[in-house]
């Protein structure tokens, strides 16, 4: 790639010197991926979508967190709590190769490997290879437990570009308690250094429960992330998974507005924060989809209604279903599953007696959905 072409790919307005440097590096190493990422804004301006694809190949996890949205998908929940088993066909490496190809044909550019805890997956390297880091920007979620220097360098070497590391309180005891895992805070701090040393792009990810935005602890965390030059991604707590029994976790508009004000001062953002010319609001389908271990596509990590199964329906048609759905397609400023009481109620009613999630297409979401 010529130098001028590289500059074109990275020449967006309002980018920090640090972000410009990162994009220049990516354009040199992975020009095809950089070109797709640079196209996202123009796609959005044309009304096209470019969602990040979250891949939940496995729900195996070494933690058992208070607020885990994936808990109800896990074998331990199905077997111990519901006395049943996961008997649906599971995602294979071949499935991932097919998804990667379909996504590439649609101009989609970003995959997040999530779970469970991705770094306990024995086939993690094969999953990265199947996504194809020369075609897609590969990100992994992690709780940080296994992310030491050696592991960080390894995942960088196989093509992972970015790590999203969970930190749920800046107070060590609170984080460990929330995560139900002693010493996990210390492991996160070790993982921060390991990721930065390995030249991985890093963001911290934290869950905002009702009232937390006003606390000193939260602002301390914002300050810590900003001082280290790390973005802090704030995810609103949703009344799903392990948090179903914690309605007090659901935030108010006031909580969300507090974070919006902190964005002016710190390197902190939510999934609805305008960034680099993108003003999507709630990102269901428009900015994110999740593919579960049974190849079901859900419109965000926290909505347990499927838009279709990728073994039966193309990714293109599934995205179209999402965009024409009255809850999911339209632009809106708030979080559908985290803030809209009508949708939260609907979601709770339709998932209440289900053993196997997500609720299939036609039974949760359908083409006949109305807002009433």
């Amino acid at each position, binding site marked *: 790639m010529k130098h001028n072409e590289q500059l074109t790919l990275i020449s967006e*307005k*309002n980018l920090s010197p640090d972000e410009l440097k990162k994009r220049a590096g990516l354009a040199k190493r992975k020009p095809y991926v950089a070109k797709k990422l640079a196209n996202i804004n123009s796609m*959005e*301006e*044309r*009304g096209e979508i470019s969602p990040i694809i979250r891949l939940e190949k496995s729900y195996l996890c070494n933690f058992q967190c208070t607020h885990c949205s994936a808990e109800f998908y896990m074998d331990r929940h199905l077997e111990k709590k519901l006395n049943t088993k996961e008997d649906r066909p599971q995602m294979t490496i071949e499935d991932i190769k097919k998804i990667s190809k379909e996504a590439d044909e649609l101009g989609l550019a970003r995959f997040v490997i999530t779970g469970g805890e991705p770094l306990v997956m024995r086939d993690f390297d094969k999953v990265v290879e199947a996504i194809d880091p020369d075609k897609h920007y590969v990100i992994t979620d992690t709780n940080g437990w296994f992310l030491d220097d050696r592991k960080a360098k390894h995942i960088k070497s196989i093509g992972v570009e970015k790590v999203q590391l969970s930190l749920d309180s800046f107070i060590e005891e609170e984080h460990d308690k929330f995560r139900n895992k002693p010493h996990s805070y210390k492991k996160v701090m070790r993982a921060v250094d390991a990721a930065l040393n390995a030249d991985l792009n890093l963001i911290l990810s934290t869950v905002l429960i009702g009232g937390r935005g006003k606390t000193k602890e939260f602002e301390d965390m914002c300050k810590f992330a900003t001082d280290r030059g790390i973005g802090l991604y704030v995810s609103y707590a949703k009344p799903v998974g392990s948090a179903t029994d914690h309605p007090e976790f659901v935030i*108010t*508009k*006031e909580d*969300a*507005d507090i974070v*919006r*004000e902190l964005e*002016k001062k710190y390197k902190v953002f939510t999934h609805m924060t*305008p960034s680099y*010319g993108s*003003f999507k*609001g709630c990102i269901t389908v428009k900015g994110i989809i999740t593919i579960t271990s049974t190849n079901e596509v859900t419109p965000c990590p926290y909505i347990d209604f499927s838009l279709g199964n990728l073994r039966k329906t193309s990714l293109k048609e599934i995205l179209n279903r999402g965009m024409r759905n009255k809850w999911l397609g*339209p*632009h*809106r*400023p*708030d979080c559908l599953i985290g803030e*809209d009481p*009508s949708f939260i109620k609907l979601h709770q009613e339709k998932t209440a007696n289900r053993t196997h999630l997500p609720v299939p297409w036609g039974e949760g979401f359908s083409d006949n959905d109305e*807002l*009433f």
Partner: protein
Amino acid sequence: MLPEKLFDQLGRCSPELTSEEVIKKSRKYFYVDEAVREKLDDSEIFKNLKNYYNDQINIDYDEFIQRISKLRNKVEQDSSIKNIRNSINIPFILPIIKDHNDIGKDIDTLLIPKLIKSFKDKFPDYDFVNHCKVNLEGNISATKVSRYDQIIENLKTKNSVGILYLSLNEFSFQAAENVITKLPEYFYLTGPYELFSVLIGFPGLLLRNDKYPPLIWISSIKNNTNPNIGYVIEPYGYNLTFNKRPHFNQANEYWWHSLSIVD
């Protein structure tokens, strides 16, 4: 055949007036805070407009009130439309712009700077942010159907006084443009001069703490290159923003259009 009442009890234009895309039954999830009705104060609005437009406004408060009353009476006398007064409605004065020759240029160099100042003076902790980083001059024009040409012509010579009605909530662009052809000719789709004047006069219109207010389209203008791109005023938390976005003539419960009348 048109329904007997063109606006419902809440002042919303009847969706039956058009077959274009509209959210027929609103769940009123995104809504302007009803409490603003009590905060709307004609004298405060006049004071702000006079303060920020300065010598571009040549009328005094008494004349403003007189002309607003006349407009209100006009609406009141028509039984098919008088319900519109139940919508949230805000009086305004349009500034005289003697050297007007381009809408985009006026937004960039006059309307946005005035609104930034008015908003910041009223809410020192919050911001009005312009997300349109490109120069708007030459990029925007009024749509033919909006009946906006006359408004623009008047800008050069006189202060028009008017009222903006938030009555086209959850209408698509096409539906808004369609209903304007069925309303009395003194209605037109709101443009940038009226919406910015309303916000300069009453900067707190779209702020609310408990729930989410709507996004307001500037209904009478379009992007010259891509007619599917429109321009909006959108709250972000306690802040306000100006931006452009594609709309593809979709109806959305978060997207509102509005009507205006002037004397």
